[in-house]
C-alpha cells in the first residue's frame, strides 16, 4: 500500500498583535493522518469557524508552510521546491473553493480558466485537443462545453458554477481534490447535485476528496473517514458512520446534538443541554490530552484528569 498524502504531526501557529504584546495562536496542533493511493475515499474534516480546518486545507495545498511537522504528497513535500515541481504538484492536487459566485472573475468568461488549465497542465497546444479535454471534464460533472463556452459567471446558477469549477479542477486528472466548504453557498435545491457529484468522482473516477465542512449531515452522507477538529486539535477521528452514529468525545456529541433535525418538524424542540455546552467549552482549552484508539477503530482525544 502506498500513501497518497501523509500529514505528519503538523502544527501551525500564527503570530498576532504588535511588538510589545506578541501573542501566538495555534491554528492547527499536531494533526496527523494519511490517505492511501489505492483506495480512493472521501476524507472529511469537520469543524466550526476557528477550528483550523481551512488552515489545514491551505497547508495541504502548499499555500501555507507548517510551523512544525511535514506534509508529503506521494513522498515529496507538498507545494514543490522548483517551478517544475510546483506545476506537477498543482496538476495532481486541485482545489474547489467555497463560493461559486466568487470562483470565477465576474468580468471574464468561464471557459478561459478551463482552457488555461488544459493548456498548462496537459501541455495541449491544438485547439481541438484542448476543447476535447474541456468537454470531457465538463461531461463528467454533468455539463458540456456547449453550455459553458462564452458564458459569464452571472449567466449561470451557483450549482452550475460550482460544477464548472470542479470540472476545471478535474482537467489534469488529479488523484486528489481539496474541497473547502463546496456546498455551503450553493442553493438548497442544487446542493445535493454537488454532493452527489463528489461521491460519483470517488466511486466512478477514483478521485480522493478531502471534504471540509461544518455540516455533519452531508459528511455522514458521503464520507468514508472523518476527523472532528476543535480549536486546532483533532478530537475524534475514524470511520464516518461509526463516529457520527455514536460520537464519543463531548465536543463531537455537542455538534451532533446541535444538528437541526427535520424528523420532528413543527415540534419546536430547540433546547441544548447546557451541561454539554459547558463541558465541550472547557475541553477546548484543556491542556494536552492525546488521541487514544478504541476497539472500533476510532481515535478519541482523552485528557489527564484535572
Amino acid at each position, binding site marked *: 500500500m502506498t500513501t497518497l498524502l501523509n500529514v505528519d504531526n503538523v502544527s501551525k501557529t500564527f503570530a498576532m498583535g504588535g511588538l510589545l504584546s506578541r501573542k501566538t495562536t495555534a491554528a492547527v496542533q499536531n494533526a496527523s493522518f494519511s490517505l492511501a493511493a489505492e483506495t480512493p475515499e472521501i476524507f472529511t474534516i469537520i469543524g466550526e469557524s476557528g477550528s483550523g480546518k481551512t488552515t489545514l486545507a491551505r497547508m495541504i495545498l502548499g499555500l501555507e508552510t507548517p510551523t512544525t511537522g511535514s506534509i508529503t504528497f506521494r513522498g515529496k513535500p507538498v507545494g514543490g521546491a522548483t517551478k517544475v515541481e510546483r506545476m506537477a504538484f498543482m496538476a495532481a492536487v486541485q482545489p474547489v473553493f467555497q463560493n461559486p459566485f466568487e470562483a470565477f472573475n465576474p468580468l471574464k468568461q468561464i471557459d478561459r480558466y478551463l482552457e488555461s488549465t488544459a493548456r498548462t497542465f496537459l501541455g495541449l497546444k491544438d485547439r481541438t485537443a484542448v476543447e476535447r479535454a474541456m468537454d470531457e471534464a465538463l461531461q463528467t460533472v454533468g455539463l458540456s462545453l456547449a453550455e459553458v463556452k462564452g458564458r459569464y459567471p452571472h449567466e449561470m446558477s*451557483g450549482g452550475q458554477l460550482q460544477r464548472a469549477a470542479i470540472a476545471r479542477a478535474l482537467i489534469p486528472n488529479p488523484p486528489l481534490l481539496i474541497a473547502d466548504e463546496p456546498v455551503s453557498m450553493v442553493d438548497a435545491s442544487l446542493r445535493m447535485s454537488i454532493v452527489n457529484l463528489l461521491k460519483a468522482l470517488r466511486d466512478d473516477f477514483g478521485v480522493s476528496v478531502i471534504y471540509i465542512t461544518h455540516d455533519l449531515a452531508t459528511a455522514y*452522507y458521503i464520507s468514508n473517514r472523518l476527523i472532528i477538529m476543535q480549536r486546532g486539535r483533532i478530537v475524534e477521528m475514524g470511520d464516518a458512520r461509526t463516529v457520527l452514529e455514536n460520537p464519543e468525545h463531548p465536543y463531537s456529541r455537542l455538534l451532533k446534538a446541535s444538528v437541526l433535525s427535520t424528523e420532528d*418538524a413543527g415540534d419546536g424542540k430547540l433546547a441544548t443541554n447546557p451541561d454539554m455546552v459547558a463541558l465541550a467549552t472547557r475541553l477546548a482549552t484543556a491542556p494536552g490530552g492525546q488521541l487514544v484508539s478504541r476497539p472500533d477503530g476510532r481515535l478519541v482525544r482523552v485528557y489527564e484528569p484535572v
Partner: protein
Amino acid sequence: MAQDNKRRDILTVEGLKAYYQMSYFGVDREVRAVDDITMTVRRNEIYGIAGESSSGKTSFIKVLAAALRPPFRVVAGSVKYDFSSGPVDVADATDAQIEAIRWRHLSYIMQGSMSVLNPVRRIGRTFEDFAARPLGLRGKAFEERVVSHLEKLKLPADVLRAYPHELSGGMRQRVTIGLATVCRPEFIIADEPTTALDVVVQKEVLSLIRDVQQEMGSSVVFVTHDMSVHANMADRVGIIYAGRLVEEGPTRQMFFAPKHPYTAHLVASLPRIGDTTQRPALEGRPPSLAAPPSGCRFHPRCPLAIDKCKTDVPPLQTVAPDHRTACWRWQDVQPLVSPHAAHGVMA
C-alpha cells in the same frame, strides 16, 4: 366571527407586485422580484419564508419592512399591518407614518450583527440611539428597562459597557435580538439571523428567538434558505419560487405532506445522519426574474410538468385546512420522506 378572524391577522398582503425598474446606457431592465403575492401572518406565530438566492424573498421582506429604495418600487397591491396603534399600509405610507411604527411596532433582526452595531459606540449607546425615543424613556428608567430585557436574553448588564468587537459572534447576535425586541414590537422580521453562526451557537440563538417571541406574543417572519431551521422554528412555512408564493402550510404538513413538487424536493434533499440512501438532486437552474418562464415558473425543472404547466399559471388554492399550493398536479405530489421512516431510522 368575521371580526375575530380579522383581528387574528396582524399582516395582510394582497396581490403585491414589486419590481426593480432600471435603465443603464440604453439597457432597460425590469426585474419582477415580487410578483403577485397574497398571504397573511397571524398574531403570535412564527411564519417561515423559504427561498433560494434570487427567488425574491429578500425583496419581499424589504417591502414588508418598508425599506424600499428606488429603483425598487411597489407596482401593485397592499401590505396592511394591523397594529395596536392603528392600521398601516406600508406599500402606501408616508415617511412619518413608517417612522412612527418603526422599532415600536415593527422591527428587524438582520443577518450581519456588525451592520447594526456601530463598531465605535458602546452597546449601551446603541441601545439609546435605537430605543430611547420609541420607548419614551430616559436615563435611569431607560437603563432599568434595557437591563431587565437583557436578563431575559441571558445577557449580563456588562454588555452595555462593551464595544461590539469585544463580544463573540453569538453574543453580538443576541444583542441585536435584544435591540430588535426591547420595545416589545408586535411584528419582527428576522432575515437569515443565524446563517453566519456556527451550529452550536445557531441552535442557542434560534431557541432564544423562539422564547422571546413566545414571551412577548409577537409575530415573527423568519426568512432563511435552510429548511432544517424552518422545521424547528416555524409554525407555518411559505415557499417562494421566482417571485411567487408557491406553497404555504403548517410546518409539519409542509415536511411530511407537501403539495408542491418544489417543496417535496427541498424536503427530500436534506441529508440526515443515520441515512445514506441516495438523495435526489434537482436539475436545472433557478429562473431569472428578469425573464421568468411562462406558465408555472417551476415547470422547466419539474418532474411532474405537463403541457398545461407551460402555458397556464396555477392559482394558489387551498387544498387542506391552512394549506395552499400553486400546482396543477398537487394531487400527484408524493412526499419523498415519510414521518414513520424517519423516526424508524432514529430509533
